[in-house]
């Protein structure tokens, strides 16, 4: 099924009683599709782009690459640095804006500018009854009614099929630099990243790749980048020598978890309190890890079928398996939160037809 309009999509949902899996480019969904697959690629096109207001409105099936090119031509970008996980997940296809929103996909710059949901200012969607709903809009300050925009971001097709999204944008920086610290233990690296992120020098990337180094990124006007890199170097002197590399070419590999692409095994994504991260990694027994978000995000490569949750025990945060087979990919919720999740799914999709496999993953 590939509706060409929102009205057609609503009609398809009203007419069916069977499960539907929603797919944009099929590049990042967790869990296999079950039932009929509804492709959103027909709902494509940019509806409004105002560079002077840092605002973009586009249909959900619009290819991400097309939007990134359009924004780059005006010296702007989506703030949250969308990861491209295709190589790591073994997928092909072209990511869509709707898929990015449905997974709340956010890269290294999340530490400074927030996640996808923080840049999302409006949505239209078709709920599980085939009703068209809009929320938010095209302005960046809006508290009119409940914020269903946030609720739809990261909802993974379970509350509705997103048909249109609005973003606030940011200017592309004139320059960038990467600071590299070497030989730090995981615990030292997290301390160094905390020191950098707690400084006024506007670090917008902080990652630790064991064996390769600890990386910090600054972006902005050229003179500013040079100034901040120098100040950071002095600020971090206690952690050893700091090499400053011009540019930010290393960051796509970190964003896309490239080191795991060619290696077999399950891939897990953990969101944790940054200073807890080294202790958590010590319990995991992972084959490899990559720390992003100053330690707040752990990418873990595990032996196939390894019982990560069993090894981990209780911790503040959550873990999701993005690559690997079998049940248990999603983090179990405490009873009270799970009850609200069930209630919201029933409220938006009373027949339970939207993305049932994704919900159970």
């Amino acid at each position, binding site marked *: 099924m590939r509706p060409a309009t929102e009205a057609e999509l609503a009609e398809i949902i009203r007419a069916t009683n069977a499960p539907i899996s929603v797919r944009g480019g099929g590049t990042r969904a967790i869990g296999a599709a079950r039932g009929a697959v509804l492709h959103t690629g027909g709902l494509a096109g940019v509806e409004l782009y105002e560079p002077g207001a840092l605002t973009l409105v586009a249909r959900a099936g619009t290819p991400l690459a097309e939007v990134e090119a359009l924004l780059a031509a005006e010296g702007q970008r989506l703030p949250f640095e969308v990861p491209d996980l295709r190589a790591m997940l073994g997928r092909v296809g072209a990511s869509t804006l709707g898929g990015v929103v449905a997974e709340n996909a956010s890269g290294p710059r999340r530490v400074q500018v927030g996640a996808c949901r923080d840049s999302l200012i409006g949505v239209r969607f078709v709920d599980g009854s085939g009703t068209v709903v809009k929320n938010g*809009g095209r302005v960046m300050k809006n508290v009119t009614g409940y914020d269903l925009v946030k609720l739809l971001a990261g909802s993974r097709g379970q509350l509705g099929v997103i048909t249109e999204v609005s973003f606030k944008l940011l200017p592309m920086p004139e320059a960038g630099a990467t600071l590299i610290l070497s030989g730090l233990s995981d615990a030292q690296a997290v301390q160094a990243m905390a020191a950098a992120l707690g400084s006024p020098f506007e670090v917008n990337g902080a990652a630790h790749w064991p064996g390769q180094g600890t990386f910090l990124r600054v972006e902005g006007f050229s003179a500013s980048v040079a100034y901040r890199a120098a100040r950071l170097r002095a600020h971090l002197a206690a952690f050893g020598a700091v090499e400053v590399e011009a540019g930010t070419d290393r960051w796509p590999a970190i964003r896309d978890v490239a080191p795991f692409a060619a290696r077999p095994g399950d891939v897990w994504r953990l*969101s944790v309190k940054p200073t807890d991260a080294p202790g958590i990694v010590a319990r995991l027994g992972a084959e490899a890890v990559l720390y992003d978000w100053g330690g707040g995000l752990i990418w873990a490569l595990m032996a196939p079928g390894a019982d990560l949750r069993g090894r981990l025990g209780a911790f503040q945060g959550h873990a999701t398996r993005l690559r690997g087979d079998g049940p248990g990919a999603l983090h179990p919720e405490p009873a009270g939160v799970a009850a609200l999740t069930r209630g919201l799914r029933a409220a938006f999709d009373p027949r339970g037809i939207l993305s049932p496999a994704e919900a159970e993953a």
Partner: protein
Amino acid sequence: MEMPAPNTMVLSGKARIVARLRSVLPADAVIDDEAETRAYECDALTAYRCPPLAAVLPRTTAEVAAVLRICHEEGVPVVPRGSGTSLAGGALPTADCVILGVARMNAVLETDYDNRFIRVQSGRTNLSVTGAVEADGFFYAPDPSSQLACAIAGNIAMNSGGAHCLKYGVTTNNLLGVTLVQMDGTVLEIGGPYMDPGGLDLLGVICGSEGQLGVVTEATLRILPKPEGARPVLIGFDANEVAGACVSDIIKAGVLPVAIEFMDRPCIEATEAFAKAGYPDCEALLIVEVEGSAAEIDEQLALIKAIALRHNPVEFREAADEDQAKRIWLGRKSAFGAMGQINDYMCLDGTIPVSSLPYVLRRIGEMSKEIGLDVANVFHAGDGNMHPLILFDANKPGDLERCEALGADILRLCVEVGGCLTGEHGVGIEKRDLMTVQFTPDDLEAQLRVKDVFDPKWLLNPAKVFPLAATASRRAG
């Protein structure tokens, strides 16, 4: 303003309900004397008043849960209250409600600089959150203009913004977790000192729900390192259109100021008469503030100056020192006080796409003339959040009604050009009946269903946000 008729069963059960509340709270935490409940009869929207059945001032999450459990069993509506600074009537009571005030819950529970968060009880005031961390070089970014008085609980309820959200976002972008007490007394931890939820973003919909989904008793807030410095410039123009074009050009050039404030002539004249900040005699002025080291500030301001000069400003005023910087902000910060000196005023809060600015200001001017009430405009130009101030005389019969009619027309205009009814103050009772201008019945129904899930009996702040007609059957139980 129409409010639902009080539930007579609740009114007649007052003695029993108050006795039950006293059984779970310390003696000084339950207020039911009619003279004393008057202290809670309104918030900052003072045109509407109604003393509650009782007010409770719990000190712990467990006490909040006990209160809500009793009210849930008794079918008593509960109106949560932070500091009572809502301009939208968010904390306006009904005669049959219990006001649940969190003001006594104001402790800092945990400060963690390595992980850049602070956990506080929700009655703590906005400014005192920054106060708790600023000696160590950190701050809490959302800065509503009532920040000296307003509580974090109210900030979360209204998703409050402030002057600096172009760079730092609003409350929802700086909130990591909450302890939420549901109407039936269930206590939930949602989010925490880590980023983004594993499942649905419940935190995202709780923030900005105006106290209708649960009572937030504790919050984990993101704190940020203070910038090295900040400096404003003042730019005067002889037309609103030119000022609007200048804002757009600054943004397109890739500069991201922390604040871009806009004042029109009526506002400039009123504040000048009051605060004597020495603002230029012009149609429109911008205050643009940038952050960074001295050299970084110089670089950004040089770029802004080059852009501004292309628009032939009446004046481009730089601040050579801290004192001059303060004088640039003086008039803007006195704007609301200046208006209060002239007359009563109503402060609107609609947001518009920045590109519609000249058209909207022209239309507001025309509408103001037609109805015969003056309007002064001051607003956050970077994000399109307007604050038209309508001047009226509360002692003159009919003036409040005319003022409200003009306010409604201005908000309809905001929606018409692609904006919204409220950018940071919330809907409350003030804009409740205009919700159908911005939303279709289906849009509203989706929101009402969220409340059904969190508060099936519709007891939490039930008469707010949505038109009463749209919620009547739900409120009836």
